[in-house]
């Protein structure tokens, strides 16, 4: 089914109205030499019933958090979200609208994005937020570009404890530009003020520090950003976890100039890595340099509140090569999901969720650390993720857990993690969804493997 609706009779009438003898005539601009006269070599059309069968079968071939207890994190987290989000987001008025170019026909999404910007600004403690970016890593890379543009400098200090894929994306985004990426090495899993001060110079455009970092550890944002600000115009970029912001000190309260991060924990399913939701917030002075869509509140001609896309002169469709970014689409539907998620959980609910993550993660960490042969890799404070060193190679541990229906965690030594850890390291994330029973089962597996 191709979803077209023109009948053969109608086609005849329409061709007549056009003054064309055939459909082929409408395509006469395509010269014969480059016309494709065969059928594409694709599987024959499937009915919806066949699609339902085939897709169900493909989905059934996967193991994952839908039928296993998931302790994997490292940038994607298995959080709870209420069903009402799916129900609301399925409304065609949200699903099938586009970028709200026409304010009078798009007040619904515009107002919701304005609510989103406000919630993200409050969550991060920043003055302004945009209406979303592609995902976390590109949001951070765009933050770095913005820092280079606004500071007029070109050295970027990036924490070694930033997610390795985020570091990789920053490298890709900067490698053709007159900019230099310098890695800040970690001490006991975190960036020390001393390391940072040694690396800072007058040409430093930005300092990028993630907290909780890739090891789950809480970094000294306050101290580091204070050091960064001793240099003129150096921009402090905080890479944050939105759930942690509900409990811990947020980027704004620690002195960040830009907060960028992954919004997936806010009601977006893990969906094998995408689509996700890039979050981007900043201090007021950066407003006109920000990438992405911005929604502003204004009035209509009768004085009623109205919302519209604003400051579009920053954007590619007006400024072309001089735009602040090439970004065009945002992640509208996922920004709406996050808005509804934050509203549904609310002030107390989101904090409670963050607290549960914290307490459960610490319960599990304590239990594992008490096992023979296991230890926490780092002793600094952490939020809902931590790294343990196992008595055996981690692949063996992960395999054993898999047989018990548990996704034990992520191996930092793996290639997909850029080989940041040791072969025996296991990175474990705990969300509010994990029960005591599941955690005890994981501890039992680890104990058995360790013997």
């Amino acid at each position, binding site marked *: 089914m191709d979803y*077209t609706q023109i009948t053969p009779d109608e086609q005849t009438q329409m061709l007549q109205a056009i003054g064309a003898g055939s459909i082929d005539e409408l395509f006469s601009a*395509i010269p014969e030499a480059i016309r494709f006269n065969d059928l594409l070599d694709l599987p024959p059309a499937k009915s919806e019933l066949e699609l339902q069968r085939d897709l169900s079968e493909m989905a059934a071939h996967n193991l994952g958090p839908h039928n296993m207890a998931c302790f994997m994190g490292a940038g994607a987290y298995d959080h709870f979200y209420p069903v009402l989000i799916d129900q609301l987001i399925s409304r065609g008025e949200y699903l099938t609208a586009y970028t709200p170019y026409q*304010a009078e026909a798009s*007040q619904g999404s515009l107002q919701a994005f304005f609510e989103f910007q406000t919630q993200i600004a409050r969550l991060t403690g920043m003055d302004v937020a945009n209406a979303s970016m592609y995902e976390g*890593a590109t949001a951070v890379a765009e933050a770095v570009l913005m820092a280079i543009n606004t500071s007029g400098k070109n050295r970027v200090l990036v924490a070694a404890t930033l997610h390795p894929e985020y570091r990789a994306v920053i490298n890709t985004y900067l490698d053709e530009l007159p900019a230099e990426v310098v890695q800040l090495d970690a001490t006991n899993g975190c960036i020390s003020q001393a390391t940072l001060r040694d690396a800072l110079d007058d040409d430093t455009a930005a300092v990028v520090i993630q907290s909780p970092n890739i090891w789950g550890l809480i970094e000294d944002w306050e101290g580091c950003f204070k050091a960064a600000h001793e240099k003129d115009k150096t921009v402090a970029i905080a890479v944050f976890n939105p759930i942690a912001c509900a409990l811990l000190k947020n980027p704004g*309260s620690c002195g960040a100039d830009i907060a960028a991060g992954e919004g997936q924990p806010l009601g977006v399913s893990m969906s094998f890595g995408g689509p996700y939701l890039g979050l981007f917030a900043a201090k007021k002075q950066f407003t006109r340099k920000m990438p992405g869509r911005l929604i502003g509140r204004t009035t209509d001609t009768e004085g009623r509140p109205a919302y519209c896309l604003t400051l579009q002169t920053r954007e590619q469709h007006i400024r072309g090569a001089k735009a602040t970014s090439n970004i065009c689409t945002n992640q509208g539907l996922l920004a709406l999901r996050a808005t509804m998620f934050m509203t549904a959980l609310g002030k107390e609910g989101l904090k409670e*969720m963050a607290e549960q993550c914290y307490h459960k993660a610490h319960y599990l960490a304590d239990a594992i650390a008490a096992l023979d042969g296991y230890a926490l890799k780092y002793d600094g404070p952490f939020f809902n993720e931590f790294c343990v060193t196992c008595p055996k190679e981690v692949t063996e541990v992960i395999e054993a857990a898999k047989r018990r229906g548990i996704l034990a965690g992520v191996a930092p030594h793996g290639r997909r993690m850029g080989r940041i850890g040791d072969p025996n390291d296991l990175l474990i994330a705990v969300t509010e969804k994990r029960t005591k029973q599941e955690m005890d089962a994981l501890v039992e597996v680890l104990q058995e493997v360790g013997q």
Partner: protein
Amino acid sequence: MTTFMEIKPTTSQGDSKSNAVVRGARAVEPLIFEKSVAGQRAVDLPPLDVPHADLPEELLGDGINLPEIGQHDLMTHYTHLSDRNFSVDGNFYPLGSCTMKHNPRINEWAAALPGLASLHPLQDDTQIQGALRLLYETRCFLEEISGLDEVCLQPAAGAHGEYTALKIIRAYFKDNGQPQRNIVLAPDNAHGTNPASCSMCGCSVNMVKSISGYTDLDDLRRQIDKHGAENIAAFMITNPNTAGLFDSKIAEAADIIHDAGAKLYLDGANMNAILGKTRPADFGADLMHFNTHKTFSTPHGCGGPGAGPIAVRKEFAPYLPIPQVIMADDGSFSLDRDRQKSIGKVRSFTCQFGVLVRCWTYISACGPEGLRNVAEKAVLNANYLAAKLRDVYEMPYFDPENGRFCAHEFVTVPEKLLAKGVTLNDIAKRMIDYDVHPPTMHWPVHDCLMIEPTETESKPTLDRFVSVMLNIAKQINEDASSLADAPTDATIRRADEVAAARKPMLIWE
């Protein structure tokens, strides 16, 4: 009062407005923050089943001031907001260059299947063979449709695809001893993302003139001579182009650019017009991106998420970002990270998986005949509208008597109507009064409307649109000033966008 109410909707409900429009007409919907009531909650969590851990005071924040709302009021709020949106489901939405086709709901069902939606991006390949098979098949589908050799599914959107492809072109030339090739040529009616993507890659962009909507090949040659053939990296072109025309000389343009040693990049925004009719590889494209949210019916979602897979010729394959989904001889699937020359990562994890599930589902539903029919009906619908409107709305590029048809969209510059004293904006805002989403405006040329009906609209819908446009023209001819206060029948009157930009209020305080 003008007479535009006379031909109000010809929907199945007769002349009455839909419920959504009536509900949407409420004067003001307060912000969710204004509805907050301390202590209200929409959902709860189970009690904590482990002991409290020590939580050092110095780590704690001050709490986040999020709204507090009960579940019913939350549902009401976001239902009311949805009523205040035009959408493909509820309205004719001929936004040119955006391909606002119907979004089949089987796609949504598929993406939400727990065995797909729940997967963690770092799971072992052995656990997710179904997901990898789906991605591999999507790769193969897009390779066949483009005629190119290898598809990379990673880019998050069309502009991201452009960026990725340009990085690949740069890496290719550097690797082949031609690092000086950093000038990109693009037609003067290119999408704004084209030059913006170039500057992010450290390339400079130079515009090539177009004449009557077509690229001026003489100017293309002049630009190459002017900048030196040895310095040109690529020519970025959209075909069918942004004027809604298939450029018959595309193969010649490809030859010119190839003779200069540079590459032809195709912005695939307008693929809907040529699916199964010609393939980018056949007309000389070396690299291209798809917009799945345009061509393959993945929903636009108020702005996203989209996906921008790229397709490339063999010689560029070593430079694709990692990881790449591949199939082994035994029929198993895996994510390959062994590409020494890869440009690296352009995003976290693998791809816009949930979007690509929808894309796979759509292509599978259509099949090869269906995809060709999509292009044929998209072009038929656009030409039909153009033919019905051309007497009143001038069309600089549409001349069927001389065999000059449009592709899947067309441009009108309604000079006669504008001469009566209305602005293009007046016309657009009056369309809203008829429940029609205005087309793309002022692009690719000033004072134009770019209209793209898509293949999924029925003839009655197209005919109603014709009536609306002719009726608006009639109003202009009778009393142009009557459009100045449009829209009169929307949820709000005209929004003051100038004030919004002058003193931006971006968050609620």
